[in-house]
């Protein structure tokens, strides 16, 4: 039920409106008296009648400062404004402010008709009374009691229907002069709340921090998401799509074939994206704020970009549907004359959005606003359930209350969907009826990822390299393989030197790099999500070696010392960029999980490459690697030191030659000096790589250190033979 329709609330709202008129009359009188008091004309005439001038000034001062009359009523002009703010700081309100406060209290009383808990609940009533009576300490105590007793969620939810009124009451009556203008706007319904009603901080000052021309890039939905999109146009279908897309920085454009056979289009915009307040997405907190406060925002400009890219025929009919910040953003599009000149915006439906002060550019645009009275977000423009103004008599406004009072739950698109489905059949049917031209088969859907400003091409500059096509038994692939998005884990283990020595014999790569008398073995797992060869996982196991062309051993007396020096000099080399590095892993086995990359294995790194399922789950704190019937490596990574991802260098022996392969990387990695992972070879596995791991003594082993990279780009080209010494 909407409070607007409650007959008992009507007279209270009418009385509140009348009081606003009276307050404005009083304010006008105060402004006129102030203007007279500060007019130079009076001062210039003073020499001609000093006695009358004195009496006149005295009368005007009394009229503008008499606490029994207009109160501290100086207004208009810089000096008068400063004086009035000084008066406010001393707690001397004007009569106009006191009348407005009465109007706001009547608005609270009107809301209480539909929400008796507001006055029936002693704690809420105490808070509202204290706010209305300008008893600061009492109001703070009442709020603290309410929060303690109900918790923040319940307290906010219960206050939500009169949130704007209570804030405006406090702002009108408190000693902070910075929030007075906002309180006036809320109380008189003259415009958007221009500042935070508590602190007085300018909303516009915050909103202008959200900069950017807005951009949209086509993006494919997952199969599961695509399957959940509506196949026929309807209000519930479009809102369901918004729920499916979620608050992920995306928007959706669909085309529907109407009952008359005409193709029409629907833009669907979700609410705020959870995460950084000012990220790359226009759906962040700042974006939500600017969409509500400003006439044009990066979010609405990004939506316009999406519509432009979608390619609507000139004059095509377009409906706009948005939730929360998305509702404010689509209303910004609807009030953009240029956008409306390019497209025929026939409908705008905003759900749970602060849109009271938006005005469509085309008067023919039909607007519907659906808000839950316990949802605070739609009241952020200052007008909520308690408003006594009919700001848009031509809109279809549904302001309802339901039994679930909990904010932010009641703000979610899922909650609105449930309410519209189950509790608001009349509103649903009416909006659906108005959307009849859009209620047909969906013939096209395209999702967009939105940005504050156009993103750099994902492959530029690191992955923008010359490429060539190579044939493989599984198909044609471009080399180098360019990975736009991947992650990797390299774990270094200490093994018996004898186990490694035999593997390196005759390779010319030198003795294995040693730590405390043990040889070093690297287990490298990578998940390459998006590459020019498709997504694939890979595993490489190798003995870490200094690489070719190292100095030979010296006379026996110095040999021991020099070998130690040689080993020490390898460590800095291990962290050098891959294309400059001499040291690397002599690969004893490799595995991948796609046939095409397996087919390329001999060309990419040489040696035997196995095909097996491979999974890498890598977070900042833990890692979990599962490689088919070969191994599991999992556990906590421990603290990490940031460094540039050094990439990977691998060596293999192929037909008497040694091949060097290299993975060049771009991204940050972390060196974990004390990981607590454990490698377990799959029990009873007969896989050759599993046998190899057991021979190296890695079953049950813990790595000495790990290198993790949760986001990186890579370039992997074909291996090249190491030139003969």
């Amino acid at each position, binding site marked *: 039920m909407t409070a607007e329709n409650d007959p008992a609330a009507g007279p209270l709202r009418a009385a509140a409106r009348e009081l606003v008129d009276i307050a404005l009359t009083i304010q006008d*009188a105060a402004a006129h008296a102030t203007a007279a008091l500060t007019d130079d004309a009076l001062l210039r005439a003073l020499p001609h009648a000093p006695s009358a001038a004195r009496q006149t000034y005295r009368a005007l001062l009394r009229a503008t400062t008499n606490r029994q009359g207009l109160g501290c009523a100086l207004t208009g002009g810089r000096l008068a404004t400063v004086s009035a703010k000084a008066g406010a700081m001393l707690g001397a309100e004007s009569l106009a402010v006191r009348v407005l406060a009465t109007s706001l209290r009547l608005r609270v009383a009107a809301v209480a008709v539909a929400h008796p808990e507001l006055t029936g609940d002693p704690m809420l009533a105490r808070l509202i009374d204290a706010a209305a009576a300008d008893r600061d300490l009492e109001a703070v105590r009442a709020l603290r009691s309410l929060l303690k007793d109900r918790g923040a969620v319940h307290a906010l939810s219960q206050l939500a229907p009169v949130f704007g009124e209570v804030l405006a009451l406090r702002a009108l009556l408190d000693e902070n002069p910075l929030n007075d203008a906002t309180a006036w706007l809320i109380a008189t319904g003259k415009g958007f709340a221009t500042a935070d009603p508590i602190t007085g901080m300018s909303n516009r000052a915050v909103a202008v921090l959200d900069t950017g021309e807005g951009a949209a890039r086509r993006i494919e939905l997952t199969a599961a998401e695509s399957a959940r999109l509506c196949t026929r146009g309807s209000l519930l279908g479009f809102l369901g799509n918004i729920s499916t897309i979620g608050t992920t920085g995306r928007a959706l454009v669909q085309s529907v074939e109407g009952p008359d056979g005409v193709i029409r289009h629907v833009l669907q915009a979700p609410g705020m994206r959870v995460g950084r307040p000012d990220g790359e997405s226009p759906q962040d907190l700042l974006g939500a704020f600017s969409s509500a406060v400003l006439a044009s925002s990066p979010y609405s400009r990004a939506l316009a970009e999406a519509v432009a890219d979608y390619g609507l025929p000139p004059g095509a009919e377009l409906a706009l549907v948005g939730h929360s910040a998305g509702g404010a953003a689509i209303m910004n599009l609807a009030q953009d004359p240029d956008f409306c000149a390019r497209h025929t915006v026939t409908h705008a439906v905003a759900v749970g959005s602060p849109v009271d002060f938006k005005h469509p550019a085309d008067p023919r645009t039909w607007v519907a606003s659906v808000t839950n009275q316990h949802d605070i977000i739609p009241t952020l423009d200052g007008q909520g359930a308690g408003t006594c103004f009919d700001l848009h008599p031509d809109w279809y406004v549904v302001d309802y209350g339901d039994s679930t009072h909990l904010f932010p739950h009641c703000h979610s698109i899922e909650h609105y969907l449930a309410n519209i489905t189950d509790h608001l059949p009349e509103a649903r049917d009416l909006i659906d009826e108005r959307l009849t031209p859009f209620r047909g088969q969906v013939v096209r859907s395209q999702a967009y990822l939105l940005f504050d400003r156009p993103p750099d091409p994902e492959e530029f500059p690191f992955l923008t390299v010359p490429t060539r096509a190579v044939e493989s038994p599984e198909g044609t692939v471009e080399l180098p393989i360019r990975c736009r998005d991947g992650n990797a884990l390299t774990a270094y283990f200490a093994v018996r030197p004898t186990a490694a020595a035999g593997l390196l014999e005759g390779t010319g790569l030198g003795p294995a790099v040693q730590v405390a008398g043990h040889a070093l073995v690297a287990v490298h797992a990578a998940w390459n999500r998006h590459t020019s060869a498709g997504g694939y996982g890979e595993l490489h196991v190798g003995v870490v070696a200094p690489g070719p062309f190292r100095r030979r051993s010296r006379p026996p007396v110095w040999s021991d010392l020099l070998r130690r020096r040689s080993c020490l000099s390898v460590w800095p080399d291990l962290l050098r960029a891959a294309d400059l590095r001499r040291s690397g892993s002599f690969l004893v086995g490799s595995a991948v999980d796609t046939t095409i990359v397996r087919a390329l294995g001999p060309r990419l790194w040489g040696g035997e490459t196995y095909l097996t399922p491979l999974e890498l789950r890598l977070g900042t704190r833990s890692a979990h690697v599962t490689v088919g019937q070969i191994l599991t490596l999992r556990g906590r990574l421990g603290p990490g030191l940031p460094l540039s991802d050094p990439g990977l260098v691998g060596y293999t022996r192929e037909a008497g030659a040694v091949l060097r392969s290299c993975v060049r990387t771009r991204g940050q990695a972390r060196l974990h000096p004390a990981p607590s992972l454990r490698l377990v070879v799959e029990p009873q596995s007969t896989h050759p790589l599993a046998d190899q791991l057991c021979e190296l003594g890695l079953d049950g082993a813990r790595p000495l250190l790990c290198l993790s990279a949760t986001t990186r780009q890579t370039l992997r080209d074909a291996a090249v033979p190491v030139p003969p010494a």
Partner: protein
Amino acid sequence: MSAQIAAIIAHAEVLRSDARALAACTERLRAIEAGLKAGGGAPHWLHASVTAHLAACAAAAADLETAAQRLSRYADEASP
């Protein structure tokens, strides 16, 4: 008549009009209270608030009327 005198007279007229408007506000306030009382929907605190506003409006109207008279007299005496 100099521009200053004309301005002072204009201020006096505006304030006199405002005094009348504020006097009318007292009637509007009474009507609000009476209307809500008749409908049985007047909050318990309304009477005290309206009474205070009535007194303030009456006082403000008197102050403005006095200021208007003083302005008129000032204009008379300052005229050459």
